[in-house]
């Protein structure tokens, strides 16, 4: 049986002793360039995944389906042949906010990417909860579609960090 945690995310306190609403989490960034971008965003206090603020994301939107879009990750993980993000155009942070319509739209985008890029295999991941605990750099809910590189018949693993 899983162990009961001794602490919960909701009781996390920042060093100042105040609970902070976290929109972006530079500490979760993999790479200095991306961390700097997140620190710039943090100073503005806006969510970079909300459509009106999407300017920091320099890759084009590949496809839209309903309220969701798919684009390449600004900062792909090592060994990834492809690293896509699937993002909602409405700001939501909790997994429970997703309905069947969302899953239909997300799934359709994933199937589109698999066909378009002839993807043989990969992983789909979604973090949710306090990003300073999950390692997410942006609290706006989004899914990752990660495709590892296959070189001379051998798959090079992509390590997706969580926490």
């Amino acid at each position, binding site marked *: *049986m*899983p*162990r*009961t*945690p*001794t*602490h*919960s*995310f*909701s009781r*996390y*306190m*920042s*060093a100042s002793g105040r609970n902070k609403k976290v929109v972006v989490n530079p500490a979760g960034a993999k790479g200095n360039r991306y961390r700097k971008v997140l620190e710039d965003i943090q100073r503005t206090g806006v969510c970079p995944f909300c459509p009106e603020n999407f300017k920091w994301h320099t890759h084009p939107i590949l496809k839209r389906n309903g309220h969701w879009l798919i684009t390449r990750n600004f900062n792909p993980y090592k*060994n990834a042949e492809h690293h896509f993000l699937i993002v909602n155009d409405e700001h939501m942070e909790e*997994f*429970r906010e*997703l309905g*069947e*319509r969302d*899953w*239909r739209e997300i*799934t359709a985008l*994933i*199937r589109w990417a*698999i066909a378009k890029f002839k*993807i*043989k*295999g*990969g*992983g*789909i*991941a*979604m*973090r*949710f*909860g*306090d990003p300073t*605990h*999950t*390692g997410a750099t942006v609290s706006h809910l989004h899914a990752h579609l*990660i*495709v*590892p590189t*296959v070189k001379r018949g051998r*798959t*090079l*693993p*992509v*390590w*997706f*960090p*969580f*926490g």
Partner: protein
Amino acid sequence: MADEKRDVVANVHYGGDYRHELERARETGECIFCAERFRALELFRERDWFLVPNQYPAKDREDQPAAFHLLFVSREHRDDTAPLAARDWAQIEVLRSWADSKFGITGGCLFLRVGKAEVCGRTVRHPHVHYYVPRMVPDRSGGLRPVPIDIAVG
């Protein structure tokens, strides 16, 4: 039925007890997730999916098991290479919400592999989704920090 289930394990690249279990499944053709002893671990169920604790939880960077490593498993043994349908996710959400209430979980990571096992790194050829929750440990500022888990894709 044994012939249909012959190809029940894809990758045997783990060590220890889990490796033994995978090797045994490969020899017998019995799917680990279909076995009675696995189904007996069920914590909660929906129409097509059920929830179990992973008996071999992922280890974090301090080589300790994750606070929680749960599995949402399809009750039906079927093609596991395609992305899940919306109706699957709707049921998984019911199970996940139940787990969150039961265990006091307030955040985590859902993960599933799609496509060919030799590319995505899947071990058991049976539809399933992982739910990871990291351990929280005290940090220097008097708060808590998560101990990261690295999930391999491939």
